[in-house]
């Protein structure tokens, strides 16, 4: 046993005095994930009362790990509208009890004779605390009943910075 300890001392003594401090170590990867794509013709919404909802379950995010390990969340949108009427978009988030946690609203204008289709890109930063309570979401799109031609396309990509640090 003495020889064992001697060898340990021998090894540990052949070092300099630097501090092996890893308390500031953290990993912060930036990730992008396709979240949803929606495409429909004008008459599809007319057939159901000029408003339609697209429900999605995102309970994979609704937990304490989200609050702990997600530093920021941003939703990036791309919309392309050739429907002859503006489109009202509401992205509503709910918790497990069905209570709304937050929502994003946007109106996409109708195309004109010179600009068709309308193409827009926009971003929305989401509060991480609200997102960690969210298990469901619904994309609700409304349009006037006079909408008759064209199609609407929406793409959404989730961009997030994760944080993994020594505790």
């Amino acid at each position, binding site marked *: 046993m003495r020889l064992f300890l001697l060898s340990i001392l021998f090894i540990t003594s052949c070092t300099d005095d630097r501090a092996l401090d890893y308390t500031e170590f953290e990993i912060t990867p930036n990730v992008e994930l396709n979240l949803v794509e929606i495409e429909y013709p004008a008459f599809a919404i007319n057939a159901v009362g000029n408003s339609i909802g697209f429900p999605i379950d995102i309970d994979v995010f609704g937990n304490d790990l989200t609050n702990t390990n997600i530093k920021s969340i941003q939703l990036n949108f791309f919309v392309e509208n050739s429907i002859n009427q503006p489109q009202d978009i509401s992205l509503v988030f709910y918790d497990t009890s069905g209570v709304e946690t937050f929502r994003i609203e946007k109106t996409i204008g109708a195309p004109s004779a010179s600009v068709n289709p309308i193409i827009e*890109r926009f971003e929305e930063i989401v509060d991480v605390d609200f997102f960690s309570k969210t298990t469901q979401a619904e994309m609700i799109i409304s349009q006037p009943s006079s909408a008759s031609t064209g199609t609407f396309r929406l793409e959404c990509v989730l961009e997030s910075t994760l944080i993994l640090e020594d505790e």
Partner: protein
Amino acid sequence: MKHLCFFILVFSFSLLFSQDKHLLYNQKHNPQALLLNPGLAYESTHFHVSLPVLSNFYASVGNTSLSVDDIFNSNPINSAIEEAISGISKSDFVSFSQKAELFQVGWKFRDIYFSTGAYQESYGVINFPEDILELAYFGNAGQNRSYDFGQINFKANLQTVFHFGMNKKVNDKLHLGARAKLYTSSFNARSQDNRGQFNSLEPSSGLLLEQSLTNLSLNLEIAGLDVGNEYYLGNISMRDLLINDVLFGLNMGFGVDVGLSYRLRDNLEITASLLDLGFINFSNDVEKQTATSDYDYDGLSFLLSSGSISIPRLDLLEEFEDNVPVSSIPHSYLDMQPAKVNLGLTYEFGSNLSNAEACNCFKAREDSTNQSLSVHGFGMLYAGNFFYSLNAMYQRSFWESLYAKISLGTNQYNTFNYGASLALDVWKVNVFMNINRLNEIRNVYFSKSLALQFGMNFKF
């Protein structure tokens, strides 16, 4: 055991941090060297025994790309790690090995020296999956690239080896030896032959990324110790683990070592050994987990066409679970031991001053040399990684009591290293010490591997 004039009791406190054993190889006065070459030209004794637990403990850790200084230096740690990850390639790996000799006994019967014993060992190697590390550290945002899952490759094994060997002096030139081994493994895990890619590419139009898993096939095979189900570590002692499961595993296999030493001339000797030519058949407590997929992911899709107004509720987690199925089934498999090859060439010269009785201690003996130059090569293929070392050594003995050896060589860690060995055989005590990587011993924080070995023998 006709002659019991010499009774050698070997206390070997050996602590070795390296897979390099060139300094121990062909040490003809040390019975531990029989495990490296069963055909060693062993300076025969009548009997030896090593004490359980107290003999020959060995531990090794090393990697091909990083040292402590690469991580902990004057730069902020996050910058240092980022630079280290950028410098890693998929051919780099981390390896570890550990060995504890449980007991060893040797005896001479007629012209054959027998030895038997048991040792517990563990070893493993993990390749750095370069792409996966970059994905985990940097993420995929803005990267516009693919990530290769085929870089995931690791293997680990925990086993106890029971062995029985024979060493025979065939004639004045030739020694032959062989050793049979019974392996009992208590834990084995391997993930090899993985393939597939995760693609995250910028789109040619729109916003959605071209995200997909192509030709994905991941597998993990595990056998043996099921600590999670059988034991709760807080409620059991290490003693229970060692005796019940670690020392005597449920999965068994067989192997053999062979070796020889041959004198090409009076002062020129060639040695060679093949170790651990064997396998273990894993059929108890086995499980194989696989994940396969070929999947283009555009997000949760609501694509309505004319007449289609039925809107399903889509679940993000279910979307992935349905398209990336993971299965788990019992699965037996054969795992080969990491076979090792040693090759050595020794040239002996000089003359020994005799310290025998009734001698002129200043007169050179004609029947004994006191110096040698040797070359030793070692190779091992394990989990697709090639381990090697190549060393040149010079040894000198003084009065057949003091043995000094120096070495210069290189290995898979791609650095030159100097080693030294010192053995003292005085009165009833034999002490030896082997130190590798002397060039980095001043500050081990710059080293990628470490090596120290020492032992104590008692002769009666």
